[in-house]
């Protein structure tokens, strides 16, 4: 069949050719700049662009504003060059070239929109569509599918392939409860394989066969066990890999997008909450190279269904042994009454802030409790009722000072009592990236963990740290020699019996090696927090005074605190719980106040680097629940010491008074080397003489999928726990036996 190329839709490039001539003189010579940063100049569609040397041609075309269709090329993965969709025309090249696999050459002339290019891309598209099922009406990718969009431009409306055997048929694979496969649709771009290899560190996902028979799979019957597996759903340019919990739930054009911040770990990943009506339908990452690049963890992505279950929707007051729903007035009055009846005075009033407490609410609660004459502000963690060992006076003592992108600059990393894979899965992928591409060496002190990179195991307890400090071991020597060494201390270390001894040893070590560890350009002493609210709590000083921490509370205010040990709350104390889920904390309470979850309020979150970011509400909170700080503001009036702020701007002014960094959004404020060293000095003085008990640094997270009330209420996360943590077969594996319709 002869295809007639319509000239209307094919802008010819001849008109622009004239402008290109004579562009040669502006080329730079390489010798004048350093070899790494040399730039080259080339002409794309008659437009001159300058790109760093070593860029791919597709990057040069993008820099010139030309859109290049692509399937296999992805900015954050290695180049594969196997889809051939990115063909462009290069002067003096007999054939069109794949722009992603071709380095940009100085002085070359490239056209991205000529009849030759169109014809070539049409040919590629025709072959891709030859075996692609006509699934769009029943495919979850429809509406945001690269193949669909590009078929609109380069596809033909009828096929020239009439094979008796029909289209290629490929068996679906079972990748677990998160990723649904429909392998007929696969166009073998291998993005998922490259992601699994390079970023997630799952080396089992791969290809078998070649040509038309190439298949993506796990080789053996196995699920894709990775905390980042959800990202392959985004990467897959077609609908071969889609989200299982989201299957057939919504179409992309029905969704309202709200750009917000994640709270499942302390990284503060940038997310986009997609909602329909009053429901969150899915959560997508937002690209931000300072924080999460393009990835989010599976908990971030899939725990949203927990927002629908177990919610507190009305205020509850305990009468006898059961909860009775009440109006807001009654509930607040009951609290005021309970406060007087309990006879709590001064430090006997205790506030405990939990994992998902937002900054505004913590500021309001601290102000309220302080106004009532108490300093008893505790954190919802082991030993949270005592002042933290690292103190809160100097920011660099509890923040991730090297910053998240800084992890990639480090050439030796020592992990102490932490499992970044579970505490900050996206950060872990950065360590892996650096480990793959540079000569990064990793050492570990603490319980053995399964990372996605190799490490030198130095021991399990604080004694191993002392040994490391003597500098005898192989790794210690490498660490000494490193130019940008990095110590990552887990947040669980501060909760450990040996916390004082460990911090003492560390601060002395940093002091000794300050020429590499703490310089004006580099601060290699980083604490990795694992809980979204913790850095903000330290920042505003939500910690008890020495005196208060020994007082037995009579009135306890739990702000999103769901990890508390029930035994730590005195029997006769009056307990108020404010939060969004009926989890552990609510069971202990005398009065429950329903509050908004993170998708329902526009509040400030401070991540482990100290970067404050503003979330945004996507859906209204259910029932009678209200924003957290407003509840506390209302309560302050009922208990007779009203807080001096009336709207969100005034409370942010108050935050600015406490610490300007809280409202300087989207930036990190580095601590200067002098202050950081002074802070460590004070820390080592405070902790001198601490004894080592020799207990192992346990990893704080045993089940990555269920760490907070939202993920505990989530059905998807429960399925993940069953299949990945407990290793049970939950019924998706018998693909061959079940009727086909169940997997359509």
């Amino acid at each position, binding site marked *: 069949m002869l295809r007639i190329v319509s000239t209307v839709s094919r802008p010819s490039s001849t008109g622009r050719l004239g402008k290109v001539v004579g562009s040669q003189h502006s080329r730079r010579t390489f010798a004048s700049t350093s070899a790494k940063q040399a730039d080259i100049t080339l002409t794309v569609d008659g437009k001159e662009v300058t*790109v*760093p*040397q070593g*860029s*791919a041609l597709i990057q040069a075309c*993008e820099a010139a504003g030309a*859109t290049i269709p*692509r399937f296999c090329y992805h*900015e954050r993965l290695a*180049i*594969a*060059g196997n889809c051939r969709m990115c063909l462009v025309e290069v002067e003096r090249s007999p054939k069109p070239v794949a722009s*992603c696999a*071709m*380095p940009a050459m100085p002085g070359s002339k490239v056209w991205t929109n000529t009849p030759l290019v169109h014809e070539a891309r049409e040919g590629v598209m025709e072959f891709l569509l030859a075996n692609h099922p006509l699934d769009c009406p029943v495919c979850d990718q429809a509406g*945001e*599918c*690269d193949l669909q*969009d590009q078929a609109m431009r380069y596809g033909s409306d009828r096929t020239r392939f009439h094979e008796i055997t029909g289209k290629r048929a490929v068996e679906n694979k079972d990748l677990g409860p998160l990723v649904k496969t429909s392998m007929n649709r696969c166009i073998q771009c291998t993005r998922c*394989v490259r992601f699994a*290899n390079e970023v997630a560190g799952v080396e089992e996902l*791969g290809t078998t066969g070649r040509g038309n028979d190439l298949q993506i799979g796990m080789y053996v019957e196995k699920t894709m066990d990775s905390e980042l597996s959800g990202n392959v759903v*985004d990467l897959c*340019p077609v609908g071969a890999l889609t989200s299982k919990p989201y299957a057939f739930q919504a179409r*992309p054009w029905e969704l309202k*997008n709200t*750009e917000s911040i994640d709270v499942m770990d302390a990284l503060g990943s940038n997310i*986009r909450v997609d909602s*329909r*009506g*009053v429901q969150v339908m899915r959560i*997508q*990452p*937002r*690209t*931000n*190279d*300072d924080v999460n690049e*393009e990835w989010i963890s599976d908990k971030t992505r899939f725990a949203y269904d927990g927002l629908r279950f177990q919610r507190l929707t009305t205020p509850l007051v305990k009468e006898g042994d059961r909860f009775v729903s009440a109006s807001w007035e009654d509930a607040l009055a009951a609290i005021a009454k309970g406060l007087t009846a309990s006879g709590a005075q001064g430090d006997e009033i205790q506030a405990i802030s939990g994992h998902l407490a937002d900054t505004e609410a913590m500021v309001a609660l601290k102000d309220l409790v302080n106004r009532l004459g108490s300093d008893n502000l505790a954190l919802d963690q082991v030993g949270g009722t005592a002042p933290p060992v690292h103190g809160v006076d100097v920011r660099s003592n509890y923040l991730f000072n090297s910053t998240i*992108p800084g992890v990639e600059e480090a050439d030796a990393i020592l992990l102490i009592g932490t499992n970044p894979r579970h505490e900050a899965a996206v950060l872990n992928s950065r360590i892996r990236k650096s*480990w*793959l591409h540079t*000569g990064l060496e990793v050492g570990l002190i603490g319980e053995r963990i399964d990372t996605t*990179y*190799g490490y030198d195991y130095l021991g399990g307890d604080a004694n191993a740290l002392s040994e490391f400090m003597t500098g005898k071991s192989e790794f210690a020597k490498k660490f000494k020699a490193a130019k940008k060494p990095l110590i990552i201390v887990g947040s669980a270390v501060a909760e450990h019996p040996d916390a004082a001894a460990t911090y003492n040893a560390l601060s002395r070590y940093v002091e000794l090696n300050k020429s590499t560890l703490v310089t004006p350009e580099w601060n290699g002493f980083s604490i990795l927090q694992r809980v979204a609210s913790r850095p903000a709590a330290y920042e505003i000083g939500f910690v008890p005074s020495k005196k208060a921490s020994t007082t037995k509370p009579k009135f306890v205010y739990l702000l999103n605190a769901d990890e508390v040990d029930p035994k730590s709350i005195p029997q006769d104390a009056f307990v108020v719980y404010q939060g969004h889920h009926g989890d552990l904390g609510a069971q202990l309470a005398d009065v429950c106040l329903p509050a908004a979850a993170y998708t329902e309020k*526009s509040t400030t979150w401070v991540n482990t680097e100290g970067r404050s970011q503003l979330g*945004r*509400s996507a*859906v*209204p*909170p259910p029932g009678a629940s*209200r*924003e957290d700080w407003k509840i506390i503001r209302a309560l302050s009036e009922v208990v007779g010491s009203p807080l001096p702020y009336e709207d*969100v*701007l005034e409370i942010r002014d108050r935050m*600015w008074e406490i610490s*300007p960094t809280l409202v*300087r*959004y*989207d930036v990190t404020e580095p601590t200067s080397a002098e202050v950081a060293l002074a802070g460590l000095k004070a820390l080592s003085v405070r902790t001198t003489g601490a004894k080592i008990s020799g207990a192992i640094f346990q990893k704080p997270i045993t089940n990555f999928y269920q760490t907070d009330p939202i993920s505990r209420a989530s059905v998807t996360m429960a399925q993940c726990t069953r299949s990945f943590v407990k290793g049970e077969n939950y019924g998706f594996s018998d693909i061959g036996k079940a009727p086909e319709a169940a997997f359509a």
Partner: protein
Amino acid sequence: MSILQAWRQAATSSVGPIRGSYTAFDRGLTTKSTSNSPKELSDIAAPAQPTRDVMVADVISGAPSQLRHRAVRVYQPTRNTMQCGQAKGDRWRIDFDILQGGGRWENPLMGWASSADYMQGTRMSFRSKEDAIHFAEKQGWDYYVQQSTVKRIPPKNYAENYLYRPGTLRIMKTK
């Protein structure tokens, strides 16, 4: 955040003269929001102030005065990670924060979402941040400017796949 309040004050103080002189409408009725910013403004991550004069449009637009109490967000939406296309990626958008409480509810009849918020479906695109800010100021809306996210893509090279690295093999490629 006190920038918003400062602007609000600036805006209300400008309403007086506007009421008095409807005739001289185009250039005379301007308020310079840059002139009376308080001092701490520079300390807060504040957007670059547009240098243009702001004509207050909401005085005659007939928009409900309640709109003045609602915050809008000025931001640059990031690319959908499901797709690679970059088109429209450099636009700036204005949309409204949702209303707490009365904004949306599930209608008991059909289970669809009902809303009492007439601005919930409104979103506007602008060519630049300054355009968007200018528009918000003109309408007298409180706005918050969200910085656009950082993008750092290193030069990529096919040859990197075959680079020799000394030491033990760290990656097994299954592609």
